[in-house]
């Protein structure tokens, strides 16, 4: 485990949920259906995971300093409502669990002006040692930050859309569609 990081860490935000990330639907994210393509929801959520990691002290300098990286192991997205090119997006992030090497996050994406829920993303992110490209414990200052954030998030209610298993049995309709 790294005992320290050789750069200054940003001030820790411990709001519950975190609400630091904003984005805009880029023209190249829109597909032939005239809305943001499924893959770019994941790209947009990945940026929200990046914002979470920067808050933990693991930004670009962590990779450029050849200290480590963070890899996504698994991701689950619910597509709740369409967003069009240029739409402003707001993200919230809840820490659902953490261990020595991984975090389990839950993001919600909202249309920032019309305020509707566009999508959710549950994701597992793992810390990776730069040299071996294998999993490694969080650097000590990051583990410390995770604990501080966990104290702030552990009593939040579990999101309704977390822990989903995909199946047809239960009816699923996007909220904008007729039932």
């Amino acid at each position, binding site marked *: 485990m790294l005992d320290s990081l050789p750069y200054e860490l940003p001030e820790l935000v411990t709001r519950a949920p975190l609400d630091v990330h904003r984005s805009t639907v880029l023209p190249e994210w829109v597909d*032939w*259906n005239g809305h943001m*393509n*499924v*893959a*770019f929801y*994941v*790209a*947009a959520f*990945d940026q929200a995971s990046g914002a979470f990691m920067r808050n933990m002290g693991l930004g*670009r300098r962590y*990779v450029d300093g050849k200290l480590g*990286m963070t*890899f*996504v*192991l*698994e*991701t*689950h*997205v*619910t*597509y709740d409502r*369409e967003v069009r090119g240029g739409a402003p997006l707001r993200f919230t992030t809840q820490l659902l*669990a*953490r*261990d020595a090497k*991984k975090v*389990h996050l839950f993001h919600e994406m909202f249309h920032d002006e019309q305020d509707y829920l566009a999508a959710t993303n*549950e*994701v*597992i992110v793992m810390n990776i040692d730069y040299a071996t*490209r294998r999993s490694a414990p969080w650097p000590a200052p990051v583990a410390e930050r995770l604990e501080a954030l966990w104290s702030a998030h552990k009593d939040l209610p579990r999101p309704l859309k*977390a*822990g*989903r*298993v*995909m*199946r*047809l049995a239960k009816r*699923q*309709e*996007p909220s*904008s*569609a*007729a039932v």
Partner: protein
Amino acid sequence: MIELDLSAPFDQHRATVLPEWIDWNGHMNVGFYVVAFDKATDTLCAQFGCSWDYTKAEIGMTFVLEAHVTYDREVKEGDPLRITTQILDHDAKRLHFMHCMYHGTEGYLAATNELMLMNIDYESRRSAPWPEWAMDRIERLAAAHKRLPVPRQAGRLIGIRRK
């Protein structure tokens, strides 16, 4: 419509990892795995006539309701990809299936993508039953895939296992 391919799993889609799919970690970025998988979904939908022609002719569209990806191993720029598809379930409006992405020459599993897809009416942009001609083909594909074992990555719940 193109000739129906009833091989199980469906094994037509091929791709190559493009330079713009690579991120600062030197491998394909999580979002672009889904770009690659989404193109494999187009290849599947072409089997039952619901790909680009379907939307271009303003008949309908297909929307993804839910997606689950497991990232099993890294792929790098220029790597050849082979994506296979297995239909797991379907109903009047929806299709539940799973893609497996393999390194095209080394053969290892790189990722899986479980998806729930819904048919959408072009005009109303709301859910609608699959057209009869599409449903006929979906039934035949589903029947061909029925004997396949359910992939172990299907129906996964995300979590950190307690030791």
